[in-house]
């Protein structure tokens, strides 16, 4: 497991910038310190600059300005083949004219390791990904999940300092993807390599990572462990991008040490955690996760409260989504476990919805 308190200087991005057209920056001032053995995910919508950062680290793209340091040594002028970084590609990039064994042996052959060492290593890594019996097959004869495991083994077999994964599970179906997430985690814990993982799938990021860097418009919006990212999003983009968020518009009324009072647009006053909106009179968005919002009677009058009309309910299976609308037309969603507590509501019924102050945050409000 990664030691989060340990030396963060194993891999460093400092003030890294990247432009392709010499007009606009794809990556604007990227800074990140990664500890040895850490599992870091770069998460963001497509075009946010996360893959570019990965490619710069691998050496396939130049760094426009800034430095990338591994073990305190700048790698920006080192050729990709000399960086000793393993990479797993989205489309696997297994060499189709080589068998699995040849694919795995390739990096070792380049490093001119003795023949029996190569054979032993290949056996070891094939059994590590449970494909020992498939060694003499060609990649074309394997299923997607098997190919992905080979790609993983090939990226690990030469004991690289860092393993990069560029949306490695993007081409797999849901069930296989979950299985592979588990597999990657298992290998990571077993072998202790450092991972930089790129994805646009937030569930994948949340379940696998030690820390997640959320990208948007070439800027890291927040870099934090999954639970912090989910429960204490730094701004509205993160709150929106990771999971689902109810958003109530209001203005900061007063500021306390850890909390702020917000006057909602319907006139109600609510108390919420302090985030990136701290000035009295500043427009703000109160962000509440749907599973933290509940029917008032459940909280027994404690916490914040807002009135809304019932619109519709969606049956999801393990939970039920209730859709409400406030008087000013803001949509609210409540997730309720599918158990005996799930209430029956009639159309347009007026309900009081409530939440605890520590379950919400006062975040920025973009200018409309």
């Amino acid at each position, binding site marked *: 497991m990664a030691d989060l308190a340990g030396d963060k200087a194993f891999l460093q991005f400092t003030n890294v910038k990247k432009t392709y057209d010499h007009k606009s920056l794809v990556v604007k001032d990227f800074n990140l310190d990664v500890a040895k053995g850490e599992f870091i995910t770069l998460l963001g919508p497509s075009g946010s600059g996360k893959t570019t950062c990965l490619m710069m680290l*691998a*050496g*396939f793209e130049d760094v426009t300005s800034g430095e990338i340091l591994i073990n305190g040594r700048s790698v920006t002028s080192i*050729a*990709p*083949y*000399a*960086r*000793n*970084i*393993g*990479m797993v*590609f*989205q*489309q696997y*990039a297994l*060499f*189709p*004219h080589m068998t699995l064994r040849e694919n795995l042996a*390739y*990096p070792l052959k*380049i*490093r001119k390791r003795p023949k029996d060492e190569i054979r032993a290593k290949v056996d070891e890594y094939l059994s590590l990904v449970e494909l020992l019996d498939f060694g003499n097959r060609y990649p074309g004869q394997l299923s997607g999940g098997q190919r992905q495991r080979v790609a993983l083994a*090939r*990226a690990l077999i*030469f004991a690289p300092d860092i393993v*990069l994964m560029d949306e490695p599970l993007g081409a797999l179906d849901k069930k296989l993807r979950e299985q592979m997430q588990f597999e990657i985690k298992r290998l990571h814990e077993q072998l202790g390599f450092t991972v930089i993982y790129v994805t646009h799938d937030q569930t994948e990021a949340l379940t696998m990572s030690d820390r997640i860097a959320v990208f948007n418009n070439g800027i890291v919006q927040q870099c934090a462990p999954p639970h912090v990212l989910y429960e204490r999003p730094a701004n509205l983009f993160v709150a929106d991008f990771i999971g689902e968020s109810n958003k109530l518009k209001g203005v900061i009324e007063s500021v306390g040490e850890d909390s702020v009072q917000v006057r909602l647009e319907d006139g109600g006053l609510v108390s919420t955690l302090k985030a990136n909106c701290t000035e009295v009179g500043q427009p703000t968005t109160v962000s509440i996760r749907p599973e933290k919002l509940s029917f008032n009677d459940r909280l027994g009058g404690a916490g914040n409260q807002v009135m809304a009309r019932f619109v519709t309910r969606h049956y999801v299976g393990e939970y039920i989504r209730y859709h409400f609308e406030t008087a000013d037309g803001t949509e609210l969603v409540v997730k309720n476990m599918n158990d005996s507590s799930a209430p029956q509501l009639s159309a347009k019924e007026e309900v009081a919805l409530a939440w605890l102050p520590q379950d919400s945050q006062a975040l920025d409000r973009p200018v409309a």
Partner: protein
Amino acid sequence: MSSLTTLEAGQAANARNKKRLTAFLFVVPLLVFILITFVAPIASMLWRSVHHPIVAELIPQTLSELQRWDGKSTPDRQTLQTFAVELHKLNAERLSGKLAEEFNRAYTGMSSVVKASARRVGRLSESQLQAEGAETLLKAHKNWEKPQLWFAIQRAGQVYTYDYYLTALDLEIHPEQGIQVREDTQIYVQLYTKTLNMALVITLLCALLGYPLAYYLSGLPENRANLLMVLVLLPFWTSLLVRTTAWIALLQTNGVINSFLLGIGVIGQPYEMLYTSFATVVAMTHILLPFMILPLYSVMRGIDPSYLRAAMSLGAKPLPAFARIYFPMTLPGLSAGALLVFIISVGYYITPALVGGTDGQMISNIIAFHMQRSNNWELAAALGSLLLGLILLLYWVYDRFVGASNIKLG
């Protein structure tokens, strides 16, 4: 119950047969077209190369008399007499010229002998012919005494023969020694070898010129690659004759290249470049280059750049990564291009005919010669059939070692 009843199975079979019939009807026009324009000519060529009834039709009785002949001395008087009668008849029917042509082909120098003899025998009256036909013949030319000539006539009289294949392979059949290498003129084997050599050189040149270009094109953004591809295809769309004549203008003694080299003083005398095998190779490489570039390009386009990146991330330097990873992945395109260029150039006719001179002739030019000039269609057919067999053999070898399934045209 999961299995079908007999009735259901019957209905399903009916429906399937109906579909098959419809599909077949759609293919019928093409099938007929191919039969008429492709299969039939090839079959007729193969047939013609072994079927030669003319001599047998002209002198049937002489040939049947010759069956009694021992093959070592001059045939007996009766045989010669029969031949004289038939020659007399052919002379009257104005068919002796045809016989002269056929005999000349079988035995060099016989054209004038047959014609002269036919005239002499033709002057005889019916009674004279019966009395001294054989003697007149022998008096007309001493060749009629030679057993070799009669052996040749006997062979030429065969309706089904493999003699043209022997000729095409520079072999001849001898009354005593059997099949042996022809002593006087050996051209065809040499020409086949030369044709294969030239095709090989052209294929290699196309690969050397086409590979880097296709690689460069495959790395460009789509719109620029398409634009440059038009430039590759542009010569392809111009008439073959125009392109070939352009090479004449470039290569001739007072042509562009010689004038330029003379002008800058690199050479003191113009080089003879036109009407050589050099001219054929250069012009054909130019003409066939697109056939190499197109399959290469389409295969290279399909290769994800992440393969090379993967190789490099695994520690391979660019050159080894190219040789071990990228190059093998382009082999289907390369072999498709090479096969196309090689097979097309082996049978190429027009360009060597125009720029090749005598030195740059290929096998198809000699086939054309026998079709148009020497009027020896049987030999032309035999040469053509051998060429066909050669190409099929090469394809088989290719399939054995490379695998035809590895070919990728796009």
